[in-house]
């Protein structure tokens, strides 16, 4: 039951947040500060999510094969590989390093 409460609260909260952004008055966008903040926040959040998912299990810092996979993905990005290939490289390299490392 507790899990269903968590799911319901998350679903409602996440939907409202999405809708709020989309339905916000247009005038808000004309403020330069809000505009620059809205452009910069996803950058900060995506960087943080990338680092968190690469170097932790959610709670503890760690360094494992995933880091090699994400590094390979970064190389693929620099080489302008398509999106699907970038993700594929990360998964394949991670699996490969784990296989080699036992």
């Amino acid at each position, binding site marked *: 039951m507790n899990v269903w*409460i968590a799911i319901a609260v*998350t679903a409602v909260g*996440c939907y409202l*947040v999405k809708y709020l952004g989309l339905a916000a008055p247009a005038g808000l966008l004309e403020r330069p500060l809000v*505009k620059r903040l809205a452009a910069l926040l996803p950058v900060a959040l995506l960087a943080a999510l990338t680092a968190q998912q690469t170097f932790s299990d959610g709670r503890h810092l760690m360094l494992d094969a995933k880091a090699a*996979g994400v590094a390979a993905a970064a190389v693929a990005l620099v080489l302008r590989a398509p999106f699907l290939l*970038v993700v594929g490289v*990360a998964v394949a390299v991670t*699996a490969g390093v784990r296989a080699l490392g036992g």
Partner: protein
Amino acid sequence: MPEQTEIRTTERAAPPPPAPPATSDAAVIRDALGVGIAVGLSGFAFGVTSAGAGLSLLQTCALSLLVFTGASQLALVGALAAGGNPLTAAAGAFFLGARNAFYGLRLSAVLGYRATVKPFAAHWVLDETSAVALAQPDRRSARLGFTVTGLTLYVLWNLTTLAGALGAEALGDTETWGLDAAGPAVFLALLAPMLKDTVERVAAGLAVVLVMVTLPLLPTGVPVLVAALAAPAVLVVQGRRGQGTAQGPRADRADDHGPPARPEGTSASRPATEEDPA
């Protein structure tokens, strides 16, 4: 007979106008499908993770259908698996989902949907749909990119969630297959095109430092929110420097949905903090 001539003339006149948008539509659809398919498939990893965390098939699928924002779903499942109470777990997921408000804020002007459409479009406001839509040069392509990415992603994400949850036991240890690397790789691929200027790079670097430092100390979901403070922090520093050198308003107000204008002369004195080398 005159009718036939008219039809012929319109037929003859018709081909030129659709030709240029047709090629660009194809390009938009190709990009949108690329993103939608790549990320949609990672629903498999979510399904597996969720089932592995002890959620039922129905709960796992409900999350993908109703929450439909991958990072939040993974955060919730991770927190529940770690034994967090439901409201704390939901708070972490909510904080992660809060970024979608800012995507919506930017998408609102670009997509220009009517108020009646917005409640439906809102469910698809995500990293991926925003990245595709905001990359388009005009409203028509932006709407097309948003819709194709959203639809592809929603359908695939939910199908692969189901498949992942069903296959969790069959597959054994999902980490053996490297599926846990898909999430960060997706985030990195979405982030990379945004790192055009020093301001973006500094914000990204600072966010990485903040999340790494706070991760062992704060509850799940909170470190990412703390890291988001990198954005206002960088803007404050940039604003102070701007006041010190120039009194006039900054030159980025005409910038519609591109990145903030490059600050004059600050790049040399403030080297970009690179992300941790993996």
